[in-house]
């Protein structure tokens, strides 16, 4: 019960903070004391990515004398979100937290526990132009009316990886990736017939790529109320005819031995890196790892589409994470200003370009993309521009902005469970998606109930 009284105090202290439109820069008193304001930043980046986070922090700390940013690794995205919720409930949230894209719905329901980017901008005078961001990124992290809720940071999208060696062994043209699902299936049949690879096709991030991305590409709604952007009382509708056709295709291919389901979420990534699969689907952010460790010739290609469903595919949607500004009961306006100073630094095109180049994530700003183009990065790294172009093409529709659903990780788990049941021969694609929709809708209903509480 003590927890609740602490939390009750939070809004009061916030209300007491005067809305400030003063230009960025900390108050004279803080600067005079010569004390740096320390900002804690929780992140979920490991290995090379963690080093890149540290490089950003070091660069920022060296660039000015007022604010010191401290990145802290907090485990996987899921672990971080759970730790964040616990810390926030105890009134000890960090200043900034990196939350994966599927946690966006949960974070938007966090009310006073977070300070959305537009609020922070209004209070601190931070200048942030949503138009600087590529629409697929901006859309995912903005409210329905366009105000930005969180700061885009690491974004990727789904792509197809081709094992060119396996294509050659199968007598296929390694320089021409299949563009449609019909071509993919034909290629897989050829690969299987010639035993050109142990696994003709596999997919990482099954739900994200084969259902969420597929729906966006083919301009199909995933949930009502504009995929949840227009309200909490949204219902899943991904059991439409075209989606059933796609999932049935995968089930049929699994039966033929041309598609191998290699596990949930990112579990199949090692299969992709090993080169065992001739065609695989995964995050564009895997590029860095492929460059470093793949012992086969590979190529990056756009996600295939089904011309029987749509003539030209729409833009794909993003994955990855964004940065959320957290509130805490005793946090001062100066601290929020310090956060704003850091976010301004993160948003510069140069930093965006370097981050994308060093990690394999896509640049999130138009200017960052242009900067990379100018440096000749895309000429030297053939295919690296495919995810950006796939994200930016066409005119964004209500079905391609992204998803705004509470407890989306749980819904993804449900779909994967139903898929695993279907793969054991327990049900067809229609039953699979119908069950997933029914169970998912219950999750959404529970979320809406708890969010209204």
């Amino acid at each position, binding site marked *: 019960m003590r*927890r*609740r009284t602490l*939390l009750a105090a939070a809004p009061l202290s916030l209300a007491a903070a005067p809305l400030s439109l003063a230009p960025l820069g900390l108050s004279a008193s803080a600067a005079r004391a010569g004390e740096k304001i320390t900002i804690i930043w929780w992140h979920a980046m490991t290995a090379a990515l963690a080093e890149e986070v540290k490089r950003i922090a070091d660069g920022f700390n060296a660039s000015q004398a007022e604010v010191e940013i401290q990145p802290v690794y907090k485990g996987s995205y*899921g672990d971080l979100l*759970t730790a964040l*919720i616990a810390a*926030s*409930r105890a009134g000890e949230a960090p200043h900034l937290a990196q939350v994966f894209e599927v946690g966006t719905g*949960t974070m938007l*329901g*966090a*009310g*006073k*526990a977070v300070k959305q980017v537009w609020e922070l901008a209004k209070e601190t005078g931070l200048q942030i132009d949503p138009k600087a961001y590529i629409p697929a990124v901006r859309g995912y992290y903005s409210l329905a009316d366009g105000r930005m809720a969180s700061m885009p940071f690491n974004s990727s999208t789904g792509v197809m990886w081709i094992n060119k060696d396996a294509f050659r062994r199968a007598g296929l043209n390694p320089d021409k990736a299949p563009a449609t699902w019909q071509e993919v299936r034909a290629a897989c049949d050829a690969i299987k017939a010639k035993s050109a690879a142990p696994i003709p096709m596999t997919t990482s991030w099954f739900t994200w790529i084969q259902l969420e991305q597929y729906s966006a590409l083919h301009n199909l709604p995933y949930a009502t109320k504009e995929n949840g952007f227009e309200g909490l009382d949204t219902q899943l509708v991904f059991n439409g005819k075209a989606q059933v056709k796609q999932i049935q295709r995968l089930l049929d291919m699994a039966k033929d031995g041309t598609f191998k*389901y290699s*596990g*949930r979420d990112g579990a199949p990534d090692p*299969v992709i890196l090993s080169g065992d699969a001739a065609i695989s689907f995964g995050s564009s952010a895997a590029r860095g790892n492929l460059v470093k460790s793949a012992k086969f010739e590979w190529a990056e290609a756009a996600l295939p589409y089904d011309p029987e469903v749509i003539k030209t595919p729409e833009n794909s949607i993003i994955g990855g994470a964004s940065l959320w500004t957290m509130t805490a009961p005793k946090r001062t306006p100066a601290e929020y200003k310090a956060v704003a100073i850091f976010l301004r630094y993160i948003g510069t095109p140069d930093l965006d370009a370097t981050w994308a180049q060093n990690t394999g994530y896509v640049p999130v700003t138009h200017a960052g993309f242009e900067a990379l183009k100018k440096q000749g990065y895309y000429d030297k790294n053939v295919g690296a521009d495919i995810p950006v172009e796939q994200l930016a093409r066409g005119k964004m529709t209500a079905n391609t902005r992204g998803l705004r659903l509470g*407890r989306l*990780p*749980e819904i993804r*788990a449900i779909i*994967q*469970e*139903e898929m*695993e*049941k279907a*793969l*054991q021969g*327990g049900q067809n694609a229609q039953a699979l998606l119908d069950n997933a929709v029914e*169970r998912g809708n219950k*999750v959404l209903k*529970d979320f809406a*109930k*708890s*969010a*209204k*509480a």
Partner: protein
Amino acid sequence: MDRRTVFSGRLLPHLLLAPQLLLTVFFFYWPAATAVWSSLTAEDAFGQGWIFVGLDNFQDLLTDPLYLQSALRTVVFCVAVSVLAMAVALLLAVFADRVIAGRGLYRTLLIWPYAVAPATSAALFVFVLHPRFGLLGRWLNTHGFDWDYTLNGVQAMGVVIAASAWKQVSYNFIFFLAGLQSIPRAVIEAARMDGAKGWLRFRTITFPLLTPTTVFLLVVNLVYAAFDSFGTIYALTQGGPSKDTETLVIKVFRDGYINHDIGGSSAQSVLLMLAVIAVTAVQFRFMGRRTLS
């Protein structure tokens, strides 16, 4: 034989009891009371607000076929783990009881797995059984056996049962061995003189005399399988494929820790707490009677 120490004042006994009482209050009653309270509410993840929903969470659970399936699965899992772990341990203990040369080494090796952390033991099983990079798993697949516990629910259940039982064999072994050694030699000798051979002697003399140990271990194993198997299952299958290895504790963890459904997972915890209270009550009754007789 009734020896009692009588304290003259009231202060000292209370002071002596206080540390234990405080621990119990803070680490048992308080969390348990919070769980009961949470199970009656619906709350957003960040704790911004809550509403009282009465028994809604319980009603949702008990009318959810997936929850009932999970409960049934847990029963099957617990019984299988307990029977397997106890049978293997008893067999090993009977043999260890006879070993003369190198008995120290033999026993140490058998007790060893108990010291292995659940996640580590799960990793060991992955290295042996995984269809792609496990030693045995790979061999099975190259020899015409369709082995893939990541996609076959029945195989997955077999794997988690085996892995959970393996960890518990050591514990059971210690108790069975101690039980065997406390059986008076004279009884065994008498049976032997009457002409009772190995199996008959075991069935009619040894096993009945081991009953107190067996009953105690049965309760401990059931509780172990229901609760402490979490680490092993989670590291091996995360409850999959589909929901084929999702026991009740895995479900509580997933709903509370990953899905942030605090009310729903609290309700599940409360039901589990009631189950433990029931099992413990039965144990106390049964064990109490045995010690009295």
